[in-house]
């Protein structure tokens, strides 16, 4: 049984501007959720709060397994992962960047090698595994960031603007990765994006932030 994400009556101000007011939402099914909303509506803040990197001003964000609320500790943090808009590339090789999460979890070297190489193959970066990750293009850095998250097989994966500032070729590759992920991982994947077309291509569900609350729409619905 997978985890369930519950957002209960949250309030959040950012630099004095109210972003969320008494917002509640539950995600209890695996699939790709695309989160949309105008600039400054709080998409990134929402993802950071759900990834437990930031607290709401009021209200609660919880993860449940069955009826049991999971304690917000390092064990839970290691079941969820967020890809930041700026990937946060470590100054080392692509291989070591992707291996990072496994290394800190204490995986053995041969297992790390096997998993990292398989994931790099999946995102199409295996030929660059020994290259310093800082030398990758923006699109490749995003793909490496996705690989770095994917290798951990998270139960909940947040992708914040995965195709922003990325050329069409890398956008297509990233979208294909996400589409294949649906079959590969039985996870909740939440993507914050501005790209309406991308929403239709990859999303199972459309979430929309309006006036501080989250609404669920059909992916084909025209969003203003």
């Amino acid at each position, binding site marked *: 049984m997978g985890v369930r994400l519950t957002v209960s009556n949250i309030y959040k101000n950012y630099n004095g501007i109210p972003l969320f007011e008494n917002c509640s939402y539950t995600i209890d099914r695996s699939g790709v959720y695309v989160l949309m909303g105008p600039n400054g509506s709080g998409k990134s803040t929402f993802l950071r709060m759900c*990834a437990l990197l930031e607290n709401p001003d009021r209200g609660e964000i919880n993860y449940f397994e069955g009826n049991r609320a999971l304690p917000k500790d*390092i064990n839970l943090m290691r079941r969820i992962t967020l890809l*930041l808009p700026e990937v*946060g*590339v*470590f*100054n080392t090789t692509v291989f070591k960047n992707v291996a*990072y999460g496994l290394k800190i979890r204490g995986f053995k070297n041969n297992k790390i090698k096997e998993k990292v190489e398989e994931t790099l193959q999946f995102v199409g970066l295996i030929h660059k595994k020994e290259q310093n990750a800082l030398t990758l293009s923006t699109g490749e850095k995003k793909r490496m960031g996705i690989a770095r998250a994917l290798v*951990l097989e998270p139960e909940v994966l947040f992708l914040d603007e995965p195709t922003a500032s990325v050329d069409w070729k890398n956008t297509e590759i990233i979208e294909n990765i996400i589409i294949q992920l649906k079959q590969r991982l039985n996870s909740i994947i939440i993507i914050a994006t501005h790209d309406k077309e991308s929403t239709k291509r990859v999303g199972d569900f459309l979430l929309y932030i309006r006036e501080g609350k989250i609404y669920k729409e059909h992916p084909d619905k025209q969003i203003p």
Partner: protein
Amino acid sequence: MNFLLESFKQAINLILNLDRELLQIIFLSLKVSGIALLIATVIGVPVGAFVGLKKFIGRGLLITTLNTFMGLPPVVVGLFLYLMLSRSGPLGFLSLLYTPTAMIIAQTILAFPIVAALTHSAVVRVTPVIKLASRTLGATSFQTTLTVIKEARYGIISAVIAALGRVMAEVGAILIVGGNIAGYTRVMTTTIAMETDKGNFELAMALGIVLLLISLMINFFMFLIQKKGVKEAQQWE
């Protein structure tokens, strides 16, 4: 001019013949400075990283103090240590005055603020997204700190090399607490000062050449590290 040239020739002879006294002085210098640098690094890097990464009351004051102490006058450190270690001082019972240990303590006091302050600068220059990325991948607070330190490695290595340059060239503090005892606490800088006073320029000049060569090597090494750091920083843009 002839006198200078003659002294220089004899100095080169001393170096080429691996003069026993010369080697002993060089070895003690490297030993004292090396141990002092090691201690200053072991304490200074975590302190610098902690100040750079954590917010606490008095942080600003601590940063200002570390920056100020980077320019500590060695003779003041020597005087302070002398008063502490002399027989009538509070640590006189340790009988450390005029020993290599006292010299190591003096040099550690001089090197520590340099390592800590420059480590702090290197750590705060690491982009905050690295810290956040580390947390999103499931790192504990300690693992995140280690990751940031690793990202700041070129700055930290430069800090350690800068501190080595400072302790190798230092004379005031070790002269006061070491006493320049032949075969026991006599190091390169104190010997140069003493031999120059005596008008015995050959040994002073030979040691001066060795000291300059060491300084040159340190600076060259620092240049290589900075070049690598700048090259990698440019890749961020």
